[in-house]
């Protein structure tokens, strides 16, 4: 078990008129090697939850155990938590601060007290993993890069810490479709080749459907739904009630089926839809 969350609750501004229960008795288990999609509309508690997972916020109640370490215990060192769990914030490029790309990515590993050779190899590897050319851009200022490149530098800075769990809060927000596909491809790469456990916070049901093997839906500080994408996306109405939706292609297949066509509506991607429809249309033509 990689992450185990037990009875986690968090209250903002306790005992004041603004008291808000941001998380309400959350129980969740994430296996090693899971790729989790965390969805829910703004204010549902997603960000509060992920901030707990790397020790930025301490729970009001409950425990979080990551790879056997109880990170909610007072004596657990933050440094140990940060090595377990890397968190990439929304618009992470706003946090770049160093003079060169190299220094920015090296900042975390250096703070771990690693020697120079180890820092160097971590920076190289992290840059390679996020698709940045080491020789070409290591000495450039991060501020003169394009938006997509800046974001990669920021992600590389977290990857260079070698976390076992990588959490990304809307890593594609504000990027164009091409930039989005590239970043998602690199995240997929980290998942497959580096065996990282990934938690992806996203508003795009299409992206979630393509990538993850487990979906957690948050609503009003609670886990509203949890399961495999195929199971979750069957519940179109429930998701819409929660201010979410299903991928357009899934919606299409449901609608097509409801018009009396005998196709499966258990479809998440364009490729799956294409295959299902071709089979159906050929069957129909031959009949």
């Amino acid at each position, binding site marked *: 078990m990689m992450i185990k969350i037990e009875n986690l609750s968090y209250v903002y501004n306790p005992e004041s008129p603004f008291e808000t229960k941001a998380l309400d008795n959350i129980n969740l288990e994430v296996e090693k090697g899971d790729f989790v999609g965390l969805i829910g509309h703004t204010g549902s508690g997603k960000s509060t939850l992920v901030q707990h997972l790397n020790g930025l916020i301490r729970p009001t109640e409950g425990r979080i155990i990551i790879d056997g370490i109880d990170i909610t215990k007072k004596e657990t060192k933050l440094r140990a938590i940060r090595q377990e769990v890397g968190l990439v914030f929304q618009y992470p490029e706003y946090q770049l601060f160093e003079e060169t790309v190299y220094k920015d990515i090296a900042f975390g590993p250096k703070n771990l007290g690693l020697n120079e050779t180890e820092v160097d190899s971590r920076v190289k590897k992290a840059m390679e993993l996020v698709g940045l050319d080491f020789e070409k851009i290591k000495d450039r200022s991060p501020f003169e890069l394009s938006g997509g490149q800046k974001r990669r530098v920021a992600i590389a800075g977290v990857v260079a810490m070698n976390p076992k769990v990588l959490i990304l809060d809307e890593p594609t927000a504000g990027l*164009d*479709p091409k930039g989005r596909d590239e970043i998602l491809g690199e995240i997929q790469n980290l998942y497959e080749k580096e065996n990282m456990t990934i938690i992806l916070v996203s508003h795009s049901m299409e992206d979630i459907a393509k990538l993850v093997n487990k979906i957690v839906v948050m609503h009003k500080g609670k886990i509203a739904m949890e399961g495999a994408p195929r199971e979750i996306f069957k519940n179109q109405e429930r998701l819409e009630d929660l201010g979410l939706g299903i991928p357009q292609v899934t919606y*299409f297949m449901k609608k097509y089926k409801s*018009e009396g066509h005998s196709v499966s509506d258990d479809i998440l991607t364009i490729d799956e839809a294409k295959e299902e429809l071709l089979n159906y249309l050929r069957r129909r033509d031959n009949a």
Partner: protein
Amino acid sequence: MSNTMINIENLTYKYSTIDEKSFTALKNVNLTVDSGEFLVILGHNGSGKSTLAKLMNALLLPTSGNVFVNGMDTKDEEKLWDIRQTAGMVFQNPDNQLVATIVEEDVAFGPENQGVDPREIRKRVDKSLEIVEMSEYKNHAPHLLSGGQKQRIAIAGVLAMNPKCIILDEPTAMLDPIGRKEVMKTIKKLNKEENKTIVHITHYMEEAVEADRIVVMEKGEIVMQGTPKEVFSKVKEMKEIGLDVPQVTELAYELRKEGIDLPTDILTVEELVMAL
């Protein structure tokens, strides 16, 4: 009054960088936006679309060529305030656009600066908030609102200046799906009910589906334009530029490649259900 809201002729714009090299952001662009039109500009990051928007209300001035807003040359310094009043601008990040601590004061900021009569300001603020459906929040603090609500306040602030045209530079990029829907509904309403000319810059293809016309920018040039059906039917070209088409449009395209007889201009779920 002419039927043309914005007229752009042979527009080139170069940014100069610190080391005295220059970067050509727009190359010989020609574009006319009609009064009352809902125009969407698509293009990926760095394609020149935000630069173009800034040239449309004289935040930037052409390196060569001309931009006319409702007949006024943006290079004419004396017309600057008339131009800004005619073509209002809404930006991506709502937090960077709100200036006051109370919603209605924020909306009043523009007309106050124009020296509009206080009674008239009161009327405009109420009307603008009503149009964006935020009247009940008029005494709230903007920083406590949701992203979609903030963006609608920013739009109300522009509306209070009585512009004929509103230019929105990726107004939904930082919003969640609910916020995006709210803002899109507002933009459509401005166009259909308030008769405002809309220039909407976005990455989201589904927001472009309902436009009157789409202009696609790539490397500082207009590479495609037409109705949504005309533009999105070019699935291959759009993908090559690094842009998307709606999922059902792509599905129809894939099925056509396999020999299924389908029209090329499918944009919605309903159209594909009917066609199959």
